[in-house]
Structures are given as structure tokens and as C-alpha cells.
């Protein structure tokens, strides 16, 4: 089923949207021609010329070739694809919010500032941190910001030597990338046999050149770093700071707090833990939260509550400056705030409880069929390895993933973390019911059996989608990225 490009449906002269005629004195009809000719655009642009119904059918059909959480289970490890509440969608479309300009006088935007301030308060309570900034637009943007805070902190102290950031080799790619963009050198920290940070290796690398250790907890194997307090102690003793990648907060929300673990700075992913929709890859939001030590460096402006009401405060001498054009992805804050109001303290804790229960249940049921290299203390996600299937039957993690598509599921994350061969990372989230989990287990068992009896059929998957496996080499070599 091929849906043509809209440009290919164009017919000259067709119009979808009609502007009202220019309602000014006739002398202004050709006003635009007064722009000096050497500054004027030459020629036109090839955009679709179609009717409104064409536009509607086109995008409606395209949406039929997309799989969202609303369509089916999405056990993507490290992405926390939980249900996106419709209430959030409705509220995010209220004109009282969408029609507010970012540069209006603060007296006219008290509603928006109230949402942001209260969200920051709640996020501070949830994470055990002192305050934060909502400016970063995504998780890796939050990492970039957090590392910039760390950098500024050391620069202010004249500690120019601290040019290294320690990162576990199991970390998400954005961690080392964010460090590199900030001018840090990345040093890898080893994992021990349990899949956790190797404390001895860590200590051996904690020189006075280290600015920070970046961790996620639970880590990317879904395992809780049992030695976190020891890790925190070692890092701080060495004069370095501890950064928390909040991607996996869903496992411990309402149960434990990164602030209590000794983290100095963290980012959150509102589009993961706090249920704002992924939108096909964005927009998300990656607020950064800090302890008192780093508070003076937060991006500006800050949001404060004074006698007259809420206000922006631009008076922070040590602030690192701005990381977004305006104040961050406001409509995403709104959704996250609505989620927190709905869930409340009990609901957030229940989310973590059930996310962990669901993951453990899946792991238990899949264990007879799939190897789980690291099983000690699984929390909200776990990693299976199909290395043994590859060796015996020649089927890879990719083949398993594609076969799952034919079963109606979005596949788990594949080939991550890097420390597990032929990895599939499964995170069910608390949104999935027992029946959904059992159905998923049945599908995984079917595939495991097919891998043994008919491996070729897995290699042909997916067969139920509009297209089969695509030629990635051709895509790169031809690099056709526009019509």
C-alpha cells in the first residue's frame, strides 16, 4: 500500500486554504513589491497544490501506517512508552494556553508561570533536589545543560583541570555525546560481572581530572546500582560531581529519590516518566534539577514567586545563560503537570510499583525461552540476549524484532546496551494489563519456537507491513532525502 507523496497529487491552481482578501486601502495591494529587487526571492518553491480533502486523506492514511501506544503494546526498553492520558491532550489544546505569547507582560501570564513554578516544585519533591530549570527540550538537551552546569561550577572555583567525565560503557549514546559537545573527554567505567558499576575500576579512575560520573539508576540493564551510596561517596571524595540520567526514573518514582542517593544534578524525561506523548520522536522535555551547590548556575530566567505573583528572575550572576529560545516546551509541561495532579503521591508510587511488577513478571515467564544475562534485582526493564539463537540457528536480535512486528507489537529496543550481544531490552511499563503481558509472552514463545523450527521465516519478517525489510545500504548510498 503506497501512499503517493502529496506533491505528486498536485494540480495547478488547486487550493486547500483560502486567505481573505487584503483588507487595506488599494494603494497597499502591491506593497511587497517595494522590497528592493536584489533582496527579493527569485522564483517559487515546489509545494503541494491540493484540496483540503486531499490533505486530510493523505495524512489520515499516513497515520494508518504508524504504530503508537494507542495502537498496541510498545515494550521499548529505556523509552517508557506508557499511556498518554487524553486529559493531557485536551488541556494542552486550551486556547487560554495556546494563544499566550511568550513575551507578554508577566502580569498577563500568571497562569503559565503558575504551572511552571508548581511543576518545578513537584519535580523537586519527586527527585529530592533543590530546584531546577524547565528550559531543556529533550533528555539529551538536559544532559547538555547539566554538564554545562558542572563545567561552570568547576570553572568558577578555578578548578580548570577537571576535563574528564566518567561514563559506564552500558550508557545511552547521548551521555558520551553530551559530554563531548561540552568539551569533556570521556572515560569509560567498567561493569562488573553483575552488570553494575565496577566500584574498584571506578575508584581507580577518580583522579583530580574528573569532573563527574554520569549514571542512570536503575542502569540500562534494568538493575539497581546497589552500591550507589558508596559510589556517591567515592565520587564526592575525589572532588567530582554525580550526574543522574533520569531516563529510568519510572522504576523508583515515589519509592526512592536520586537526591537522597547523592546525585548533584539530574535531568528528567517528561516524555518518558511523566507520560507526555512521544509524538513520533518529539517534542519532549528534559528539565534539569539540581542541589543547592549547582543552583546558582541554572539557566536563566528563573521563575520565582513574590508577593505580587509569579515572575521571571534574570538576576543570577553565575547562570550559564540560555539553552532554549524561550522558556522550554510549555505545552509539554502542561501535560506532565496534569499527569502529576492526576496521579498524586500514591499514583506515582503505584506507577513504579506496577512497572517493576510487570517487568519482573515478564522476565520470569520468558526465562525458560530466552537468556537473561543479568538477573540480579531486575526493576522496570530487563535485557535478553538471543546470542544462543544466533549461534545455533542463525537468527539475530533484528530477526526477532521483525517477527514481533508480525505479531502486532512494536519490538523492544535492540542492540542496546552495547555490553550485551544480540540484545533486546524490554520495558512493559505499568500501563499494560496482565492479559496484555500474557499475550506478549505467548507471542515471544511462538517466535522462540519458530526460531528453532523455521528460522528462515523469521528472516523474511515482517510480512504484514506495507513494506518488507528495507535496503539500508541503498538508503545510505543514494542518500535521497528530499523529493
Amino acid at each position, binding site marked *: 500500500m503506497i501512499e503517493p507523496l502529496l506533491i505528486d497529487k498536485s494540480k495547478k491552481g488547486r487550493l486547500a486554504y483560502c486567505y481573505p482578501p487584503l483588507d487595506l486601502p488599494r494603494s497597499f495591494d502591491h506593497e511587497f513589491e517595494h522590497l528592493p529587487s536584489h533582496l527579493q526571492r527569485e522564483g517559487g518553491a515546489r509545494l503541494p497544490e491540493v484540496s483540503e480533502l486531499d490533505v486530510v486523506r493523505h495524512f489520515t492514511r499516513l497515520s494508518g501506517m504508524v504504530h503508537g501506544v494507542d495502537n498496541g503494546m510498545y515494550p521499548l526498553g529505556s523509552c517508557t512508552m506508557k499511556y498518554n492520558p487524553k486529559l493531557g491532550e485536551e488541556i494542552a489544546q486550551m486556547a487560554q494556553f495556546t494563544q499566550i*505569547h511568550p513575551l507578554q507582560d508577566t502580569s498577563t*501570564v500568571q497562569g503559565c508561570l503558575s504551572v511552571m513554578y508548581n511543576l518545578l516544585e513537584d519535580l523537586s519533591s519527586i527527585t529530592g533536589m533543590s530546584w531546577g530549570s524547565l528550559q531543556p527540550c529533550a533528555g539529551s*538537551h538536559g544532559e547538555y545543560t547539566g554538564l554545562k552546569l558542572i563545567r561552570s561550577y568547576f570553572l568558577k572555583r578555578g578548578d580548570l583541570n577537571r576535563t574528564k567525565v566518567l561514563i559506564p560503557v552500558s550508557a545511552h549514546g547521548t551521555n558520551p555525546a553530551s559530554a563531548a559537545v561540552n568539551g569533556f573527554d570521556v572515560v569509560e567505567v567498567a561493569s562488573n560481572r553483575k552488570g553494575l558499576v565496577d566500584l574498584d575500576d571506578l575508584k581507580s579512575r577518580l583522579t583530580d581530572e574528573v569532573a563527574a560520573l554520569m549514571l542512570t539508576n536503575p542502569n540500562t540493564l534494568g538493575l539497581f546500582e546497589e552500591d550507589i551510596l558508596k559510589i556517591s561517596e567515592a565520587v564526592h571524595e575525589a572532588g567530582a560531581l554525580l550526574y543522574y540520567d533520569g531516563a529510568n526514573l519510572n522504576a523508583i518514582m515515589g519509592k526512592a529519590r536520586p537526591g537522597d542517593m547523592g546525585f548533584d544534578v539530574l535531568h528528567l524525561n517528561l516524555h518518558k516518566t511523566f507520560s507526555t506523548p512521544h509524538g513520533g520522536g518529539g517534542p519532549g522535555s528534559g528539565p534539569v534539577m539540581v542541589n543547592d551547590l549547582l543552583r546558582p548556575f541554572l539557566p536563566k530566567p528563573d521563575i520565582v514567586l513574590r508577593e505580587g505573583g509569579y515572575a521571571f528572575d534574570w538576576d543570577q550572576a553565575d547562570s550559564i545563560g540560555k539553552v532554549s529560545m524561550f522558556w522550554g516546551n510549555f505545552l509539554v509541561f502542561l501535560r506532565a503537570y496534569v499527569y502529576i495532579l492526576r496521579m498524586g503521591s500514591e499514583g506515582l508510587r503505584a506507577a513504579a510499583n506496577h512497572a517493576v511488577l510487570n517487568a519482573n513478571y515478564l522476565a520470569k515467564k520468558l526465562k525458560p525461552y530466552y537468556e537473561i544475562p543479568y538477573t540480579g534485582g531486575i526493576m522496570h526493564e530487563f535485557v535478553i540476549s538471543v546470542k544462543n539463537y544466533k549461534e545455533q540457528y542463525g537468527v539475530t536480535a533484528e530477526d526477532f524484532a521483525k517477527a514481533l512486528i508480525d505479531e502486532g507489537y512494536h519490538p523492544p529496543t535492540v542492540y542496546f546496551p552495547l555490553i550485551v550481544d544480540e540484545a533486546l531490552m524490554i520495558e512493559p511499563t505499568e500501563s499494560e494489563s496482565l492479559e496484555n503481558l500474557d499475550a506478549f509472552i505467548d507471542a515471544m514463545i511462538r517466535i522462540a519456537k519458530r526460531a528453532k523450527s523455521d528460522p528462515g521465516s523469521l528472516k523474511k519478517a515482517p510480512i504484514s507491513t506495507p513494506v518488507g525489510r528495507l535496503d539500508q545500504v541503498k538508503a545510505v548510498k543514494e542518500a535521497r532525502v528530499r523529493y
Partner: protein
Amino acid sequence: MIYPYIPHTDEDRAHMLEALGLSSIDQLFEVVGEDLLLEDSVPIAHRRTEDEVQRMIDSIAQRNIRGIPFLGGGCYDHIVPATVKALSSLPSFVTAYTPYQAEMSQGLLQAIFEFQSMICEITSMDIANASLYDGSHAIVEAALLMVNAKRGAKKVLVSETIHPFALKALKTWVLGTEYEIVLVEEKDGITDFSNLAIGDDVGGLIVQSPNRYGFVEDYTGMAELLHERKALFAISSDPLSLAIQKTPGQWGADIAVGDTQSLGLSLAFGGPSCGYMAVKQPLLRRIPGRLVGITADAEGRRGFTLTLQAREQHIKRERATSNICSNQALAALMTTIHLSSLGWNGMVEAARQSYAKAHYLAHHLGQLPGVDVLDAHPFWCEFPIVFHDAKRLRKFLQELRNEGIFAGVRLSALTRKSADELVLLVAVTEKRSREELEMYIAAAQRVMK
């Protein structure tokens, strides 16, 4: 006990715990340790029902005051067809993840491909990515590209006339790095190129048109000058302005960046927005962000897929030159639907009407005492007016506010400099009706007479 958005019944929990050989969920958290486990939950308010939340939000929303916005400063109130909201709200678009599994995401990938194509067409460039966070991020990524593309590059030349907040973001980026932003000063409201020094360590030049005052700038000869010195040229533009303004590609720029907020996105207190970046062919492997390309499956069927991923953080990790992962996909979709609904003719009409209405207002304000319209340079839909004293400016803003009009953005709100206190940036789009324009003029006449 049923919690919001969590389907488990007591029976479900019991069944699952039995399968795990456990008696309580708490046992799954023992690994966290007593020192860290919270006894109750985190200290926030208790949960609320949908109705309670809606009432609370309604009351919060009442504290926002809407007005007729003659406000610009990087965010503009344009007409958006109803198709945008309707189609971008389709549930599978909203709740989908990044289309890494291409076969089951063809709809999303195709929409992104169409976005990329349209951005190329509008900017006269060869390759566009699937979006960046916003216009300021796009400018920072352009600078990053410049210093990484040229061996030994440590500096990026930046015009003082770019959006002040984007300039702040650039300064934030260089903090703690080995790079430097060198300001190219403005003179009389436009970039002054007379003292331009393009050394071997300069990666490139970044400018903006229309600039922060709304003025359209002249870049004749710039591209040649920079390319001679092996430096890159980046132009930041409001994409709607490119319907009538010379495009970055036509100026010979290597990189076009900006924000597509003016193409289909609501004001939304400034976010989410949508940054764009488009480059010329030689920079294909240097452009950051996601790229969707065309390919085929084994049966020869046309398909779309994320491609050239070797550029991105998940592959390059510590060797990455950009750390972007999530982008503004759904916002880019809104822009795509918007452009599909407008077509080229619609885009031109919107741009021309904005131009005409802005000049109409400027013409009338120019006749008032106590304020000067700065029109030494051509402008599109935004222009600066300078008051002779602060008191009248305040009175002006208040009087118009009383009529439900937000008269303009104070330049000092962007530059954070008191020297700019008397300058007001007035933006007029095609959405401003004749009635609204006359209201503005009448109120202004009352105050300034």
C-alpha cells in the same frame, strides 16, 4: 485499589506475585536498600480525579490574559488552518515513538520526508533534517557544524543582529569549551561587515534576516568572501519570510537555519517550537539530527527509513559532534500539514499580506509625534519604533492594553539592556484584521497627541 492509568486489580497483583513466588511488591524493591526506600511516597499532593484536575486547570488558565498580539520577537501569531490541529491530533501520530522500526512506521517516515523536502524547497537548499528543538538550537548546531567542518577552526563570527536569546544560547554553548563567538557589530540596525576578519581559525559566519529589529539584510558578496577563506556561511530566517525574501540558498549560504513556529505552530507561551536546518550537498554527512531517506524492500516497493545514522549520537557516542536524539517531530508534522494546506500560493499570500499590513501600521504610526518609526532599512512584518521618553512608552503600552491590545515587544526584554528601553518591536501578521489595525492606530493617536 485501582490507580489512574494503571489497570491492575487486586486479583491481578495476587496472581502475578504468586507467579513470582513473592508475597508483596515491596520485595522487588529490597535491592534499593532501607537507607533509600521511602516509607510513604514523595511529599506532593494526593491524587485528583479528572474533574478536579480540570477545575484546577481552568482556574489557573483564568489567570492568563489574552490580547490582540502585535508581538513578535521570534514568535508570531499567524493564521493556521483547521487541518493542522485535526490531523496532528491523530492518535497514532501523537503516541508513536521515533520510527526506528521502519517497516511499521512508513506513515510517519513519509511525513518527515515531506517536511524535509518542503524545507529544502523554501530555503533553496539540498538537504534538510527532521527538525531541531527551536531556532536558537538550530543556530547553535550551525556553529557546532562550522567548528567541526574546518580543521583548526576555533571561532564563529556571529552578527549582533541575530535574536538576542539565540546569541545567549551561543554564549552558553562556548562556556567551558575551546571555542569563541566573535561578534560582528551592527550599525544603524543592520550588520556592519566593514571590519569583518575571517582568519584561518574562523569556521564561519552566522547572520539573521529579517534580523532582530525586523530589518531585511543585504548579503551581497558575503558567500564568496567566506568561501575564499574556506569558511561557511549560515543564514537564520523566518521561513515564511522566504516567500518574498531572497533565500539562504540564493545568497550562496551553506547552511539555512531558523524556526518553523510561523508555519503552523501556536504561540503556546513559546514552546514547543520547531527548529530547522538545511544544508548544501557537500555538508550531507555533517548535518546533525535525524534524516529520512527513500529506499526499497526486496520486492522493489518504495519505502522510507531513517538513514545516515552513522552521523548520530547512538553510533558516534563520544565522537559525536552533536548530541541530539529526540527532536520536535510532532511540531514538524504540524508544519508539514500547514504547508500542505497553504501550498506555495498560500505561503506567498500570507507573507505579502503580513508585509502590507505591517507597512500600513508603520505608515500611520510614523505620523505620530513623540515616536519615530525606524525605517532606514526594508522590513517584512516587524519593525522598531523608538519613543522619545519612557513615560510615554509606558502610557502607550497601557492605553493599548486597555483596548485589549499587546502593542509590541520591548527590545530591552530581549537584550536585557536598559539602553534599549525606548525601543518597541511591533509585529503585524496577515492575521491582524483591518479593525484591529484601526484600533491600534486610534489608541496610539489618543496617547501620543
